[in-house]
């Protein structure tokens, strides 16, 4: 869940806007290059964006007896990197803030940072790391997407704890309280998200592995191997 409208003091709103802005601006720069030089990858970008749309609209019940929704940003981060994904996150958060009163315009900066930047950076780092160590590709994608989802809520907890430190115990106590609320709800959902995105990744390899090679997501050899095995 995102931080609701008005629930972050103005100073923190401004702070998170300033933190998020460079990522968005660099993402737009990267996007322009992508549109100029790799036009054939744009359908895939649309799919990555659509995944954020679908997954972040599904409010799922969780074992804690409360509801939350996945983020779906892992796919975009793996395919296009965290900066371009931050723009996808921004679009979805704007939609939800304007039409659904879910999240908010004043807290947009903070929410873009947690969902569009922090989570995707982790997903991207895990994917790159997994590729280097030769971990199974689908397992890597699963871990990247699931942990990106979870990390988004860790960052949200940090943001809330910074703005609302506990009277006794300060930031740490407050963080523990927020993290408990979000984490218990989110762990099962992030596992589902990781699984769904790993499966999607398989289908992308099935139909268009050459685009993944072009994006530098897979090496030629890895793409050939994965297609051959079919997993």
């Amino acid at each position: 869940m995102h931080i609701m409208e008005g629930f972050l003091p103005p100073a923190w709103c401004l702070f998170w806007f300033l933190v998020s802005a460079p990522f968005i601006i660099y993402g737009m720069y990267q996007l322009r290059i992508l549109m100029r030089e790799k036009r054939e990858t744009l359908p895939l970008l649309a799919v990555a964006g659509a995944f954020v749309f679908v997954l972040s609209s599904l409010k799922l019940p969780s074992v804690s007896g409360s509801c939350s929704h996945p983020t779906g940003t892992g796919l975009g981060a793996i395919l296009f990197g965290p900066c371009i994904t931050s723009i996808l996150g921004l679009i979805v958060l704007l939609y939800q803030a304007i039409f659904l009163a879910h999240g908010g315009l004043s807290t947009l900066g903070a929410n873009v940072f947690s969902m569009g930047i922090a989570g995707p950076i982790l997903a991207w780092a895990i994917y790159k790391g997994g590729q280097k160590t030769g971990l199974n590709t689908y397992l890597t994608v699963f871990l990247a997407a699931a942990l990106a989802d979870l990390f988004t809520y860790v960052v949200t907890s940090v943001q809330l704890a910074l703005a609302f430190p506990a009277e006794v115990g300060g930031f740490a106590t407050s963080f523990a309280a927020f993290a408990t609320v979000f984490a218990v709800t989110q762990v099962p959902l992030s596992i589902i998200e990781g699984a769904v995105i790993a499966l999607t990744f398989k289908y992308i390899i099935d139909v268009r592995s050459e685009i993944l090679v072009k994006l530098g997501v897979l090496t030629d050899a890895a793409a050939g191997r994965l297609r051959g095995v079919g997993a």
Partner: protein
Amino acid sequence: MKYALEIAVLAIVLVFAASILVVLSTGEHEWAGADDQAEDVIKEMTGSEYEPWTTPVYEPPSGEIESLFFSLQAAIGALVIGFFFGYYYRGRQITT
């Protein structure tokens, strides 16, 4: 095995669904959004009711209309995913 990943994903989803059924049968839960709970935590942590300093520009007038916008969001996403995967599969058939 060709469908190992599909089976694994299906198993995860089934375990998840089963866990929800178990929770459902073990007492009362509100199934509220986690962000509403965060509001309570703010109260607990700071010891006072937090007054939001601004309100949403537009709020869906009812829960039904809210679900309309949520399903619209999912529909738009699903449409795009379906369209491009269809496009890709078709392209593959022609080239191979």
